[in-house]
């Protein structure tokens, strides 16, 4: 281990944040770029399943809430891309990778949103699962990422409560049809939400180094268990069920037991074979491709303005 490397690891061990100007191992930088860009892409792609219902929100109040949430997500995307850029990465290049299918984003957004209750379930389960990940990441070793997480977590928690409230209102005051929407939504999104924590620990090769660098701070399976333990009581409070016959409290472990995830589906979706992988990427690619002339114009205009100012 070189002195720089030792110094770096000592900082990490002492919970001192690594800042953009500090020395860092190339693998640390790369891992972070990959992780933060994935996270940023997820925020942006994550707007699509919600955008699918924002034109059809059933009341002014719900419409405004959903619009505010989508706006926040665009903001999170920007914030995360900035954090990523502090590591010397290029936003355009990383987005390019996304459009070529080389970069990942949260697989959950490859599932369609098929009824209005999904706008509640996405908030409750999907943002809920994201928060479980992100709460831990607030203490991640890279300063700008950690600070982004602190800010994002706050807003995500708000979204999560709002999502849960949608479901609660539908279950408490809704018609029979509306209650069925909720249960149908949970049936479709339950397992994909559990998959958000990634493969089980024995299948997760990169995790150990990330743990040592404190980029990651808990294992996939630990996080998944945390999520389930906090979510099941909320599920019961709703008066809904999970599509998992094996889900039950284990007194001995002090945790909920749950059934085996369909890993075939998990890896299918990861490989691009999810219900909406194709549409999501195409939508994003089209937006950026068709926006090329707009961005070029903005650049050309800015340059002209600068020249004028210099001339004046």
């Amino acid at each position, binding site marked *: 281990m070189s002195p720089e490397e030792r110094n770096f690891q000592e900082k990490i061990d002492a919970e001192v944040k690594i800042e953009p100007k500090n020395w860092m191992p190339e693998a640390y930088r790369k891992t972070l770029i990959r992780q933060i860009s994935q996270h940023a892409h997820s925020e942006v792609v994550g707007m699509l399943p919600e955008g699918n219902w924002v034109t059809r929100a059933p009341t*002014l109040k719900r419409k405004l809430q959903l619009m505010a949430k989508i*706006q926040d997500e*665009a*903001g999170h*995307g920007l914030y995360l891309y900035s954090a990523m850029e502090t590591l010397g990465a290029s936003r355009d290049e990383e987005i390019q990778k996304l459009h070529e299918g080389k970069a990942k984003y949260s697989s959950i957004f490859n599932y369609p949103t098929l009824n209005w209750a999904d706008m509640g379930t996405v908030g409750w389960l999907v943002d809920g699962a994201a928060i479980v990940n992100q709460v831990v990441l607030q203490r991640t070793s890279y300063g700008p990422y950690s600070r982004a997480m602190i800010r994002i977590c706050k807003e995500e928690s708000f979204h999560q409560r709002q999502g849960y409230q949608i479901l609660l209102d539908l279950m408490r005051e809704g018609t029979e049809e*509306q209650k069925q929407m909720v249960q149908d939504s949970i049936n479709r999104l339950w397992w994909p939400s559990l998959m958000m924590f990634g493969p089980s620990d024995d299948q997760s090769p990169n995790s150990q180094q990330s743990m040592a660098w404190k980029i990651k701070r808990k294992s996939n399976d630990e996080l998944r268990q945390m999520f389930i333990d906090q979510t099941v009581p909320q599920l019961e409070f709703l008066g809904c069920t999970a599509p998992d016959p094996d889900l039950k409290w284990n007194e001995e472990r002090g945790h909920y037991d749950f059934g085996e995830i369909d890993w075939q589906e998990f890896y299918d979706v990861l490989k691009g074979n999810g219900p909406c992988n194709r549409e999501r990427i195409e939508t994003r690619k089209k937006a950026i491709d068709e926006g090329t002339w*707009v961005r070029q114009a*903005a650049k050309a205009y800015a340059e002209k303005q600068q020249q004028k100012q210099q001339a004046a």
Partner: protein
Amino acid sequence: MDQQHALQEYLLRLGDSSMILGQRLCELCGKAPAVEEEMALMNVALDLVGQARNWYEYAAELEGKGRSADDLAFRRDAHEYRNLLMVEQPNGDYAVTMARQFFYDTWHYFTLQGLANSADERIAGIASKALKEVTYHLRRSAEWIKRLGDGTEESHQRMQDAVELLWRFTGELTTADEVDTSLEAAGIAPNQQQLASDWQGMVKEVLTEATLELQPEDAWMYMGGKQGTHTEHLGFILAEMQFLPRAYPDATTW
């Protein structure tokens, strides 16, 4: 025309125009040319739908028939809508989106500026709050007119085409009818002549700075939205926007 009726119509024009433009911007979610624009478009849309809610709430109260703001938004068919034709036009390319926004923002800004001094206090209150938001909308869309108009050759041509495409819907922004003038007389709505000349002045200034050709002043104008006769687009917008409340009429909460 009795003032109550005129006021009712006028509030719907304000509410519906904001609502429909907000809806059009919602359609762009995930499709904007940059993430910054995603955020900005949704932000503008959010302001507009929020303002629509305020106008609808007042209109519903005034009407006094037990209809709610949601009823006004989600339970009226196209012929009952009173929005300007401009805002129901399709998003087109970003030049069209921004030209539409700019023409409307200019009208919106000067209208709200007038309404902030309305003899009707409720209107003055809503307008004052909205004016802050719309000041930003106008600054932003005017900036885009200039960027695209005076950007690249391609963007200039696209923006020029957009201005030409949408020009026929601008007449409605500057043409007062009986509703407008009777409320102006009552000190509720702004001076309509002033509004028209302010609109023309601002549009001329920004288009000129953007190196865009002005359109003929005597151009043929397509009007009718304020009176409830729309283009073919509105029906499709409403079919989508109103689907849930209409498909689940027994639902009292969402």
